[in-house]
């Protein structure tokens, strides 16, 4: 015990060092660097309209990565979000095309608000299934969500026979117009999708930093046994984070199919990996207990702005993949430098 005390006492001293400052704000500085480099390389990059377009693309990943952050803070992982996104998009598409009730002989066209609520409920339901598998049946998160990833994708393909629902604008006589509002409209010049992202981020941030649930989540991710013995309802926390992750995947699915005014069963493939990357770049520890919404948002914007910038300056999409991968590896390297010394303690 004695040896671990001394070095910790030394590192606790609030000595200012440039290295430490750069390390802790790395995602922020990376974003600044990306913006600066691409602004220098292309005159079209540093414009308001480009930033808004890029941000509305980031919104999809951003919403997913907030859900992913909650799951990772709990010490888990959610591989199913890309599939839930597609499934929910298809569910929304099917409802927009009309739900035929054979026994009543009618076709129901639910209004858009009902479509939105039902779709989010489907996403939350699939997420809750993940949570129940993991917390009650003790299936490891990686395996449980991998399975649900395949099942959800399969159900989406079955529902559409592999085809895509097109033209989801609805029609005035059926009273279900407005589906494209999410994807196309703007409030005060800002795309709705960005506003949705900002709202979700602020709510999640408040939840993590100021609510009892947030504290439970950090505690059960840091040491589940200690949290449980302190009276934290760890099982409920676990089910809740997967449910929220599923619901946010549904919201992302709605935004995406609204932007495209179409819903396909293959949408969102590998998006879960991008979401994980954003969380990791944002400084969260995959072992749980460490991470912030602010970091994750920076991570999502780093990935989004980097790939958009590469497109704008005309770099091949193969190179984009290489760059994104390099950024992820670099981020994990930085994380282990930041947490490496402290993690061995105790």
């Amino acid at each position, binding site marked *: 015990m004695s040896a671990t005390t001394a070095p910790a006492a030394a590192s606790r001293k609030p000595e200012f060092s440039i290295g430490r400052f750069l390390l802790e704000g790395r995602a922020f500085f990376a974003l600044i660097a990306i913006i600066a480099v691409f602004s220098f390389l292309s005159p079209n990059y540093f414009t308001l309209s480009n930033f808004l377009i890029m941000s509305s693309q980031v919104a999809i990943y951003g919403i997913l990565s907030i859900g992913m952050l909650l799951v990772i803070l709990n010490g888990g992982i959610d591989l199913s979000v890309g599939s839930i996104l597609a499934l929910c998009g298809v569910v929304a598409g099917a409802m927009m095309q009309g739900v035929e009730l054979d026994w009543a002989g009618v076709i129901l066209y639910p209004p858009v608000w009902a479509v939105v609520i039902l779709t989010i409920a489907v996403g939350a339901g699939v997420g809750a299934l993940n949570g129940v598998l993991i917390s009650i049946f003790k299936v490891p998160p990686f395996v449980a969500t991998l399975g649900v990833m395949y099942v959800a994708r399969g159900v989406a393909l079955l529902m559409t026979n592999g085809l895509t629902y097109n033209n989801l604008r609805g029609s005035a006589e059926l009273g279900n117009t407005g589906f494209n509002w999410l994807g196309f409209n703007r409030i005060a010049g800002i795309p709705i999708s960005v506003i949705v992202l900002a709202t979700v981020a602020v709510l999640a941030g408040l939840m993590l930093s100021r609510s009892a649930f947030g504290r439970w989540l950090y505690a059960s991710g*840091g040491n589940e046994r200690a949290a449980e013995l302190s009276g934290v309802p760890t099982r409920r926390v676990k089910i809740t984070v997967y449910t929220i992750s599923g619901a946010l995947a549904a919201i992302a699915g709605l935004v995406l199919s609204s932007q495209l005014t179409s819903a396909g069963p293959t949408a969102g493939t590998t998006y879960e990996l991008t979401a994980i990357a954003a969380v990791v770049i944002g400084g969260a520890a995959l072992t749980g207990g460490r991470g912030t919404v602010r970091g994750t948002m920076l991570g999502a914007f780093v990935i989004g702005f980097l790939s958009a910038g590469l497109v704008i300056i005309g770099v091949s999409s193969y190179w984009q993949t290489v760059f994104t991968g390099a950024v992820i590896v670099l981020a994990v390297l930085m994380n282990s430098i930041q947490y490496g010394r402290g993690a061995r303690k105790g």
Partner: protein
Amino acid sequence: MTRAASHTGEVVLAARNVAKSYGSVHALKGVNFDIHRGQVTTLFGENGAGKSTLMKILSGVIQPTTGEIILDGRPVTFASANEARDRGISIIHQELSLAPNLSVRDNIFMGREIMGPTGVDFAEEERQVRRLMEELEENIDPLTPVEELRLGQQQIVEIARALSVDSRILIMDEPTSALSASEVEVLFKVIRDLTAKDVSIVYISHHLEEALTITDHAVVLRDGTMTAYAPRAEIDLEWIVRNMVGDNYDLGAPPATRFGEVALSIRNLSVPDPAGFNLVDKLSLDVRAGEIVCIYGLMGAGRTELLETCAGRLTASGGEIVLEGREISHLSIAERIARGLALVPEDRQRDGLVQTMTVGENLSLASISSFTRGLFTSRSAEKKLIGDSIRNVTVKTSGGGAAIGSLSGGNQQKVVIGKMLATRPRVILLDEPSRGIDIGAKAEVFKLLAQGAEQGLAVVYTTSEVSECLSIAHRIIVMHKGRISAEFDSTVTKEKIMAASGESVAA
């Protein structure tokens, strides 16, 4: 014997002015001492005195800032623990460093597998493990995965691993903290056999009496300075404690409280083991408000299971747990805490602390609802709670925002206790609250419990050290194989307690 006698006493390893600094923090300030061939040298000192730092220097894990290590009369520097091991110095760490998923055999030979013509020679490894286990008088199968062993048995495996290297100098950092009395005896026999073979032992333990029975030399450290160094013949317990603490220590006496109503009543409680027999066997116990009850017993007596069942971590197979007149067996851990029953678990690293959170967040963890206003937590109310807790349990920290890992073991334990006291319990259960903390911190912890009892708190604590039974407890319960084997008041002698626990009083 004559051959051995000519060798013993010769200095094999010596520290000369060894100092270690981390930035401006001086963990060790110039330590001098010798390790003699075939003898046991024990390091005494409180947590944070620099014992583990010194051991890590001797075993090559870290390098000293200044000073020299002299091996066989020549100055040496070890770049790594492997280099030290190659020179015959090996260490048994305080924290277990076993891979739980691997078998005992694979753990013992991890990193230095015996190679045969067709890969690893598992049969030879297994044979050697069996021989080691025989020597340690432990019935552990070499192919059992380590995770299936009790903590004490895991420690035996750790010891077996160090023995398997054939080292000349063996450093043992708290090897007995999880061992039962009979296992300690076997270990001591092994130590005597080793010293007879000219192996030198460096020993660290918080069990002072226990260490005194085995040691030949004593080195006492305090705040990174060596305060005393003497052969066994010249010292006694009081001498060690005086040099360790600097002044008199006292674990306290039972507070003169008036007992109230029965706060916790355990009736015919049974807790099953997966293997079939009962870990706790139809046990009944009443604890009154303001009363302090000590439960003494060996490892495996069922103490931990009893307390964890009361707190709701384990499920009973029969019996009742009644808290202030109400049956609570069906309640969750959180509900029991809300009703006023709190548990301070045995293993503070594994069950007590969240390492990723600050001191303050750990302290407030069990009482979040008390400072939640509507949807959000109140920062000012939390800050007040943390400030009060730090003062109440006297945690030495730079503030609520400090990293939990920056505290010494004793202060970490106070954080765990403070966390549960902040829930304002009526009954507090503490499983080995003194495990791995130094005497000064022990005395403070016991004082805290006595103060709680004076205010009407019912206190139940377990211990493996007899001297801790005879401190603040009004009543001493001895557990043996899941049952209460004896019950004493505070005037009992140590010998009677040990006899009732099934422990031999010899040695």
